[in-house]
């Protein structure tokens, strides 16, 4: 009973079942989308402005990587972790403290940017293991709240402990010469982020099919049975959390190269909820939802104020959060599997009717999937 309380547990089961049920058809459709996405990533810089590439796309890709770490835990481990923003931020702060050479807050150790990367990813992964070890004994909402608390304490830590940052944050963080200074090679970081996104996607997908990944999903679905089969639930969850922390820390490296600055607000409650919103908008049960959510979020963040008429009804640029909050609310109320779910349903409504019911029973009952609870 308790194990089935999560809405997307059931959903994910349905989504995973999908390829088997309609196999050839869906397989090709998915392939087409994937190939189109890769081609799109490669050629995007040729068709858009530098700003769009260096600000919107790069930001969306790196946020997508963090969101993917969240989705990986949520969809395959049943662990909705709100600490991913913290992992991403810790990497940024460690690199910031390690590579700045003075004139900034923090330790100003002046190390080589690559050593900074090793330190940042290393420390974050260790921290992820420790936090994961504490949090992984709990599940469900408890886990969500514990990780939320980690995230917010992290915000206060970097804000209040002025040795490492303070609320003003760390500035002038150097990137490796390969990435260069802002405006020097705007496309390089984009392609780095694109390649990392693809790799992260493939690796996480691969992991879900390894014995470890399967055990994780088993624990998600029926922890009692897995436990009696001799699986150590805690170790599996902790390792999954550590892996997700590692993935988030890679995004943290991209972020600090991209932004050259990080401050507690980058990982505060707004950022924490922002990441959750990204995951939910895209579709929290599918890895690719991470990037869909991220691009929608970044584009909305940047362009929603240009939509005519919004200002007249009191929803100008200042009220961005109200708008994004309503989008989020609608998605949660209407489509728990996010935009990807909406997309799938639209495609499906164009295909013969017999395919629906078996794949997604009772979806349009208007009450989500309450019968699965």
């Amino acid at each position, binding site marked *: 009973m308790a194990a089935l309380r999560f809405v997307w547990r059931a959903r994910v089961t349905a989504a995973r079942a999908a390829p088997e049920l309609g196999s050839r058809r869906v397989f090709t459709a998915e392939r087409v989308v994937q190939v189109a996405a890769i081609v799109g990533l490669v050629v995007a810089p040729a*068709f*858009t*402005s*530098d*700003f*769009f590439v*260096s*600000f*919107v796309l790069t930001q969306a890709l790196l946020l997508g990587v963090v969101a993917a770490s969240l989705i990986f835990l949520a969809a395959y481990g049943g662990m909705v972790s709100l600490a991913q923003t913290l992992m991403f931020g810790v990497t940024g702060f460690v690199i910031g403290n390690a590579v700045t050479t*003075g*004139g900034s*807050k923090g330790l100003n150790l002046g190390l080589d940017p690559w050593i900074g990367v090793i330190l940042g990813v290393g420390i974050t992964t260790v921290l992820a293991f420790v936090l994961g070890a504490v949090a992984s004994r709990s599940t469900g909402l408890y886990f969500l709240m514990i990780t939320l608390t980690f995230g917010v304490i992290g915000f*206060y830590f970097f*804000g*209040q402990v*002025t040795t490492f940052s*303070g*609320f*003003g*944050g760390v*500035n*002038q963080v150097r990137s490796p010469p390969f990435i260069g*200074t*802002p*405006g*020097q090679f*705007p496309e390089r970081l984009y392609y780095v982020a694109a390649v990392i996104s693809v790799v992260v996607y493939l690796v996480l997908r691969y992991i879900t099919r390894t014995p470890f990944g399967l055990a994780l999903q088993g624990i998600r679905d029926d922890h009692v049975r897995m436990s009696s089969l001799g699986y150590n639930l805690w170790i599996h969850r902790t390792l999954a959390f550590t892996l997700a922390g590692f993935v988030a820390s890679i995004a943290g490296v991209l972020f600090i190269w991209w*932004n*050259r*600055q*990080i*401050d507690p*607000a980058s990982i505060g409650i707004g*950022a924490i909820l922002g990441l959750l919103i990204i995951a939910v908008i895209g579709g929290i049960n599918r890895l690719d939802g991470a990037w869909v959510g991220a691009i*929608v979020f970044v*584009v*909305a963040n*940047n*362009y*929603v*104020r*240009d*939509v005519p008429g919004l200002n007249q009804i009191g929803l*100008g*640029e*200042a009220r*961005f*959060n109200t708008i994004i909050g309503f*989008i989020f609310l*609608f*998605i949660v109320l*209407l*489509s728990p599997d996010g*935009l990807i779910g*909406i*997309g799938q*349903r*639209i495609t499906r409504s164009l295909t013969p009717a017999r395919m629906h019911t078996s794949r997604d029973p009772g979806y*349009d009952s*208007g009450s989500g999937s309450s019968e699965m609870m």
Partner: protein
Amino acid sequence: MNIAKHRLRAVRLLVLVAVMALFAAACSDSSDTTTTVGGSATTATTSGGTEVIKLAVLSECAGAFGDFHGQDMAGVGAAFAEYAGATITNPDDPTEGFTGASIAGVPVELVGIGCGDDTADTAIKETRRLMEQLDGDIMIGPLSGDESIAVANYAKDHPSQTFINGSAGAMDTTLEVQAPNFFRYNSDGAQWNAGTGDVAFNDLGWKTAAVIMDDYSFAWTSGAGFIAEFCAAGGEVISRVFPPLNTTDYSSFAGQLPDPDEVDGYFWVVGGSGTLPALKAFEDAKGPVTPTQHMGNLFWEFAAGSMDPSMEGAYIGGFGTAGDLKLDSVEAHTAIIDKHYDTIPPFGEAGPQAHSGFLVNYYLAAKALIEGLEAVGGNISDDQAALQSALGSLVLAGPYGSTTLDDNRQAIQDQYVRQFVTLDDGTLGLSTVAVIPTVDQTFGGTFAQGSMPSRTVPGCDTRDLAWVGNSISVVDGVPQG
């Protein structure tokens, strides 16, 4: 059921269409700016000169200072309307901007208003939007300390664009970062408090003081102004207490302060929602003290509306403004604001807001920019080098006096010490009691690059400050000098 089903589907479709529309908006935006060269905005220029100057303003529309969005924009708008022939779009809402400005025959277009929330993170994102997406040539802003440090660092990486600080007062912004294209015509937090140490030591007779300040860079800067001057005059700061920003329970921090019989006075730099709770925690722990045993920085000005009127007589540090001075330039400034704006939301009528620190600082920034552009005939085609050098050597006349810049492009200007007074309606107001002439940022070498205000800097040393003992007292709004 069927109807519900269809309605649901329709809503989903609507969401999808909305998302696609957004993308369309994003793409159309990006396609007409494909000529931009990353970072340096050269689209606006041709070989012969400048066709149009693109101005961006970074203001605040969220966060603690979101209420001052209108005042910020009124400052910029009034300057452009008065000195560059701009037409204010809506005299009841400054945030709608202005059109039709031109300087030396070159049109100036307001391409965007950034929406900050007093965090560095958002400030940088908004700056990038303004300067990279909207191709701003020049940006006025931001408003608050941490934001300005981040923006000054951004400026350093983008030398062919020019940045003029809005109202931020962190010392690092100019003295530490020293970006050659970042200019600040307002004082920093330490300068604003010039005069308070002098008043405490020489007028109130404090020999020792305790300082309680929020634990972040603007508060350190602000507290540093008092400490440096009080110690320079011969006083001793015997205790420094640092509650973290937005502490819920100040009792432990109030408890750290020495008792009233162990120290002559307390200097307060606690802002946000903490100003009054911190004072109350102090009173709970130490008992009531007289108003002249307390002194505060400009945070007390923000909290004046909720303060106990028994604080009458307490001195507070300045914010670069002195609207109660009886000077022609003060009246002229009020008239300018009154002329171009009727109301400035959310505080109502425009005239009474003419001397708000945020409005005045954004106004000064815009006025400086106009004068700088006039000096170069509106030509910024040389990667703005001439403009930047003109800005550096301006002598800028403001409502209360003139401002010049030092080598780090930081304002040197007069400061004003104020005192709480009870107004006719029984509420607390501020009255200027002293003018401190030409205060510079370094406090006679107390501060320098590499020794920025922090928990331990400045130490407590006696030294000669040019302005100590030279302050001009003000009686009924008339400076006596």
